[in-house]
């Protein structure tokens, strides 16, 4: 594709760093150094992203409810979340007697490690991706299913009925909605013929799948949005922490920084889900291209790929937040009915339709 060649490829940057490091030290050390480097970058990214997402959520919520939101600390209230973070860090860690201390402390880490593993496969820009596995989509599905273990452990080891009920709910919810998420992603895998995330992005060089894939692709996008909102336990599917009945659900007993971990993981998961959705359905870092309009496509290429990625991702994030602040919470039976009686069958039929479309070559 000639038009994509003008997009800056980050692999030249990472390649030169790699080469520079190799001049300095032995290959074993280079690998270690690079591991540390990538880890540090992601940690920083996590912290900043978490802060920003919380701020964004409060602002979006305020817009929905026709108020200002945070506006005192810093310009436009931008420093509000930093203040919140400092407050959280200073708080006392309340030890729970009769809790299973080991599992209690382990649970937040499992949740956050699962999100770390998932973000490793996210393509942020052309050539900027920590690992580009040839089974990318499947890998993301696999590691994101680990997070639920942390939630279940948190609920059980707290030795509190609210936590336990919250964890059970969230477990049932995540396990069931995982299917729909997987199936809706599979729809695009059928279209693009690859599971590699970078490959899926490349396949959208002449138009994003949500446009190219006719109505079925749009249906999968909607299913993906609904199901992934449920999978990250956000409203209107936030039964796991339904504050009006369960205090705070599975993290009722957590305080201070351990609570912050759950909080952070929840927001990061939202980001990951949005990033995957943007990558698979909306072209990821691929600029907005239309078929063979060379000139138009070329103009679009001048906007850096990273900007495209974050624009789309935050668009999806905004959609998810919009959900939360407009829809009332579902009951657990409604929630399971929605998945097993509607989303699942629809996605299955959808996949068959898509396979048919692809076989007949009807897509663009």
């Amino acid at each position, binding site marked *: 594709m000639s038009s994509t060649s003008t997009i800056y490829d980050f692999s030249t940057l990472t390649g030169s760093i790699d080469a520079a490091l190799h001049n300095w030290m032995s290959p074993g050390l280079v*690998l270690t150094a690079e591991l540390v480097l990538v880890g540090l970058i992601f940690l920083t990214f996590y912290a900043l992203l978490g802060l920003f997402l919380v701020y964004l959520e409060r602002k979006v919520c305020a817009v929905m409810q026709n108020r200002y939101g945070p506006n005192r600390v810093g310009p436009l209230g931008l420093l509000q979340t930093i203040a919140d973070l400092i407050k959280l860090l200073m708080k006392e860690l309340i030890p729970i007697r009769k809790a*299973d201390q080991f599992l209690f402390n382990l649970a937040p880490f499992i949740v956050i490690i699962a999100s770390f593993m998932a973000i490793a496969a996210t393509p942020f820009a052309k050539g900027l991706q920590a690992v580009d596995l*040839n089974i990318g989509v499947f*890998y993301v599905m*696999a590691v994101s*299913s680990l997070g*639920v*273990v942390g939630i*279940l452990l948190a609920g*059980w080891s707290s030795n509190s009925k609210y936590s336990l009920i919250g964890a059970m709910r969230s477990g049932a919810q995540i396990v069931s909605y995982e299917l729909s998420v997987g199936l809706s992603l599979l729809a695009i895998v059928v279209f693009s013929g690859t599971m590699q995330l970078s490959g899926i992005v490349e396949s959208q060089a002449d138009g994003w799948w949500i446009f190219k894939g006719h109505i079925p692709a749009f249906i999968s996008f909607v299913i993906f949005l609904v199901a992934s909102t449920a999978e990250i336990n956000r409203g209107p599917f936030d039964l796991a922490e339904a504050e009006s009945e369960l205090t705070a659900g599975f993290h009722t007993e957590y305080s201070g920084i351990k609570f912050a971990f759950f909080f952070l993981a929840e927001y990061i998961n939202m980001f990951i889900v949005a990033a995957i959705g943007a990558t698979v359905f909306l072209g990821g870092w691929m600029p907005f291209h239309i078929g063979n309009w060379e000139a138009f496509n070329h103009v679009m290429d001048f906007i850096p790929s990273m900007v495209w990625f974050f624009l789309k991702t935050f668009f999806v994030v905004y959609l998810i937040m919009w959900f939360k602040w407009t829809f009332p919470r579902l009951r657990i039976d409604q929630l399971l009915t929605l998945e097993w009686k509607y989303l699942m069958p629809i996605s299955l039929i959808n996949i068959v339709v898509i396979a048919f479309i692809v076989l007949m070559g009807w897509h663009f």
Partner: protein
Amino acid sequence: MNVVMFYLLSAIILIFSLLSITTRKILRAAVYLLFVLVATSGFYFLLNYEFMAAVQLTLYAGGIVVLIIFSILLTSHISHKFKHPALLNLLMGAGVAVIGAGVALYIIFNEKFTANGQPELPVDMTAIGTQLLSTEKNGYVLPFELISVLLLAAIIAAIVIAKKGKQEEKES
């Protein structure tokens, strides 16, 4: 580096396998089992067999362990602890384990494994998918379909166990 990772993963697997059978709290055993399974998927990553690694993660770590933990959550209380096994049982079990491991290790180390002569298959999704649905030799469509019979029957068996008869419904 790969060698280091190999020993690291092996150590994780060994230690947590032992922990998972010696711990007296049932949920901890499940969590140690989770670590073992995740570390096993690390082996597949080391072998560049990402598909198998992801399968290991989804099926075992994300599926089976979650099911186990779920059933523990439903049935057991946090204060429950297993009793210490009787000393005699412990000794006999350890003896059998040591002898068994010894024999197995002796045999495996003395075996001259011959590499399979077949060409190494490219590990990409298309090849795996085609192979899964192939009806030729080394194709897996028959076991694949047979498993669907097995799963259907297993679901029905679960229903049989859980189903309430009419009489019970009236009583409750």
